[in-house]
């Protein structure tokens, strides 16, 4: 009798309703025991054809759609679309509005990174940091609610400015938040950064090399964790980012741990930007006069903003009517999902969860 062990690989569906795929992503895994042989992402479960819907709406009506395009950092989506449209129409945004945009954008970046770090903890089985980060996120969402009445889909940054000025009680609340935020960051570091189990789970897991960053167009904190010093705010400044003094944190490991540290460092920089913006903010109008049914020039424009997940670009083709001819959006998560099968090969299922969380992939950005 042939006494040979018959080994088989097993196919397993991770998703579309799996707790750690952050939305409705389906990963078709071929596993050998606990080891992943192959991982094939299957996307499209959240497709809402936002780009197509935009073709049937006026430019101003497109902004609420952009909230849904990537709902964790809606401010930045609003901003990206507004920026592209303003480029098409040569609108001049009032000074105060620019400062408000920066404040809201950076607060939104902090909120998004807090979500990412908390959820990474949750995915690795540390349930408590999640609640801690959400405590601070709550404060930020309160600030947003105070400003525009919404906590998730803000519709705040409009074409030609922002929808309304901030209320007077915003300043003390925001200052108070910034003052304690540094301490809270230290708390997270205490719970996570030096925890030996955390390090064991993240260090040298899912290494993205510098070459892979170029090959797959990885961007944002994930690229900066792999030693690529590129931040659109610094190297292709939009709005008024050239007026602020901030560093671009770069790490060289390329693993989950460095991606986590890059986000941690970036939050502190964002807090410093908000502080500077609050100090420098001038008085004045928050919105320039623009008709709701304005007609931009015929032409084509691409503009990009640094989102918390990477480069977020908007490509708009205008045929001179009130509606855009074509809108195309680019989010960082799509490229991050593409690189995942490459770096996950040969690792364990638990590592896939860690990688997925550390790349901060969220599905609405991919499916649009």
């Amino acid at each position: 009798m042939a006494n040979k062990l018959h080994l088989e690989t097993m196919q397993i569906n991770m998703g579309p309703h799996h707790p750690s795929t952050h939305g409705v992503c389906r990963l078709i895994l071929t596993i050998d025991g606990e080891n992943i042989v192959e991982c094939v992402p299957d996307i499209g479960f959240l497709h809402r054809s936002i780009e197509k819907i935009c073709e049937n709406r006026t430019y101003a009506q497109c902004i609420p759609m952009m909230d849904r395009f990537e709902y964790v950092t809606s401010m930045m989506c609003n901003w990206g679309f507004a920026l592209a449209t303003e480029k098409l129409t040569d609108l001049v945004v009032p000074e105060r509005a620019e400062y408000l945009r920066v404040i809201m954008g950076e607060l939104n970046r902090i909120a998004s990174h807090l979500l990412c770090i908390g959820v990474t903890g949750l995915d690795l089985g540390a349930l408590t940091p999640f609640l801690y980060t959400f405590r601070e996120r709550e404060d930020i969402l309160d600030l947003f609610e105070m400003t525009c009445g919404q906590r998730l889909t803000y519709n705040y940054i409009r074409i030609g400015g922002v929808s309304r000025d901030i209320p007077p009680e915003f300043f003390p609340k925001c200052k108070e938040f910034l003052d304690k935020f540094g301490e809270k960051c230290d708390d997270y570091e205490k719970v996570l950064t030096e925890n030996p189990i955390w390090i064991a789970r993240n260090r040298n897991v899912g290494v993205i090399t510098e070459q892979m960053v170029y090959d797959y167009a990885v961007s944002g904190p994930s690229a900066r964790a792999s030693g690529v010093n590129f931040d659109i705010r610094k190297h292709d400044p939009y709005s008024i980012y050239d007026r602020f003094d901030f560093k671009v944190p770069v790490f060289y490991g390329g693993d989950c741990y460095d991606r986590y540290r890059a986000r941690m460092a970036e939050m502190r920089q964002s807090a410093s930007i908000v502080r500077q913006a609050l100090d420098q903010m001038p008085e004045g109008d928050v919105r320039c006069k623009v008709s709701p049914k304005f007609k931009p020039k015929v032409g084509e424009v691409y503009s990009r903003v640094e989102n918390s997940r990477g480069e977020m670009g908007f490509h708009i083709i205008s045929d001179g009517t009130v509606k855009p001819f074509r809108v195309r959006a680019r989010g960082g998560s799509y490229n991050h999902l593409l690189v995942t099968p490459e770096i996950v090969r040969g690792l364990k299922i638990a590592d896939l969860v860690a990688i997925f969380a550390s790349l901060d992939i969220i599905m609405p950005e991919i499916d649009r």
Partner: protein
Amino acid sequence: MEILELAWIFEWLNENLLVPIVGDGEFGILVRNLILACSVFGLLSLIALCLVWWERKVSAHIQQRFGPMMTGWHGILQTVADAVKLIQKEDIVPALADRKVFFWAPVICFVCAFAAYIVIPFGDGLIVSDLNVGILYIIAITTFTIISLMMAGWGSNNKYALLGGMRSAAQAVSYEVPMALSILGVVMVTGSMSMQEIVKAQSAWYGFHWNIFFQPLGFVIYVIAATAEANRTPFDLPEAEQELVAGFNIEYSGMKFAMFFLAEFVNMFTVSAIATTVFLGGWNGPWLPSWFWFLIKTLGMVFLFMVFRWTYPRLRVDQLMEFAWKVLLPLAFLNILWVGLYEEVFSKW
């Protein structure tokens, strides 16, 4: 304080109530054992229910929440409400499941979790049966839990459940060894495997002659291995929520799920009770009644396990194995060496 010891109440009840009615023949013994079993079962179910509530409260306060507040005083009836809900749930069996295995898995898990309490001394004289191989019996019976987890994993006919079941098997095999070796140190000192003997051997120094002072390493190894044994974070791989969704109990619902859930908490109480008995002097202690000391120490251990769960991330499966075989096992041998040296050299001075 003598009056607060519970043992005499049972003896009085036995002599004045049971013996006159059922006699002390074979039938009498049967009735008495049944009553004992029921009382232990009732007590532990109550403890498990309280632990569920307590864990929620501990986790909530660690996470700056309140936890359940609406049902009764600080939500103390929350677990009762949960139990009522679970009883009402439909009992779903997957179409392709191995029905017999699927049915028996929670039953075995439940029974084994409770069977360990036959030899746990709750207080001076409060023990169901003082077996002379008590500690060996506990190690054997708690290992049975793993078989039930594997059965659940296999019988569910679900790939995630299967992975969870396999993980639990691998984990149990790895962590049984250092756990047994860490207890071996105590058995060497005591010279007996009976739980009561182990407790009595620690009664010097006004009840503070605890084994933990002489074998701190053994205690640490036991606590780590016990965390793995009770499937709790950072070793809760069999039911890793974020990777395997719920692991072995993914297909279970209603009362069957409740049985797994309850067994988990009873197991946590078991490992705490063993730690108390073996390392922390059991029911020994001054002034207070013995069962009270036992309860304080055991609940303290339970609290420690709860804090572990809500503050640590989870290990990966290969790291878990490495830790058991490359770190804990050599340390356990070192502990035995130390105990032997201590017994032979230092204690004779």
